[in-house]
């Protein structure tokens, strides 16, 4: 099956903990993204990454960092979570020359 896969589906943690979310795409794409979706469904881009370049949305706090081992994987690490980090984190991918993006199912983070 070719798609974008994310793990875990859900994660509940305490303030100050470190969390890491995984994303893998089997579509052969060369560009991957992380979005944050809040409770009002608003989608905010956090990072885009291909083999050559990481582009960071300047509004993303420094405690967030993407980690990539190859073009099929882009993980997201949050060093010390805060209550406002509670959201759904969506991973997406595409060909750099195309604008259509393919999304994973998301990871729902709840920070207590």
């Amino acid at each position, binding site marked *: 099956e070719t798609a*974008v896969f994310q793990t875990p589906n859900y994660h509940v943690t305490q303030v100050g903990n470190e969390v890491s979310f995984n994303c893998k795409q089997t579509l052969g794409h060369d*560009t991957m*993204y992380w979005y944050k979706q809040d409770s*009002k*469904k*608003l*989608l905010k*881009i*956090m*990072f*885009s990454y291909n083999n050559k370049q990481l*582009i*960071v*949305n300047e509004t993303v706090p420094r405690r967030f960092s993407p980690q990539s081992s190859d073009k099929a994987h882009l993980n997201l690490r949050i060093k010390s979570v805060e209550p406002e980090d509670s959201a759904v984190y*969506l*991973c*997406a991918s*595409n060909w750099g020359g195309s*604008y*259509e*993006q*393919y*999304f*994973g*199912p*998301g990871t729902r983070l709840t920070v207590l």
Partner: protein
Amino acid sequence: SQWGEENLQALSIQEGEDVTMNCSYKTYTTVVHWYRQDSGRGPALIILIRSNEREKRSGRLRATLDTSSQSSSLSITAAQCEDTAVYFCATENTGGADRLTFGKGTQLIIQP
């Protein structure tokens, strides 16, 4: 309309009715994407319209684009319960992390 400072819009209609969702965007674009997000899943592209098309149809979906007024619409004919979802418009950007800029979304609920 999906842009501006409004919260997630909600539309509730009866099965079998027609519905139109509007999107007005701020920055110039020649292509508007419409994505659909089902509960618990990531957004998925359902129709894409370019500036030279004015209208695009796909099954019961119809998209329009008016670049002069920077607006687009998505219509669904004879809505069915399975059309219940959140619908986003998105515009293409050049440069930066946000290859696509998503509108705030419209929650569409089809009542049986």
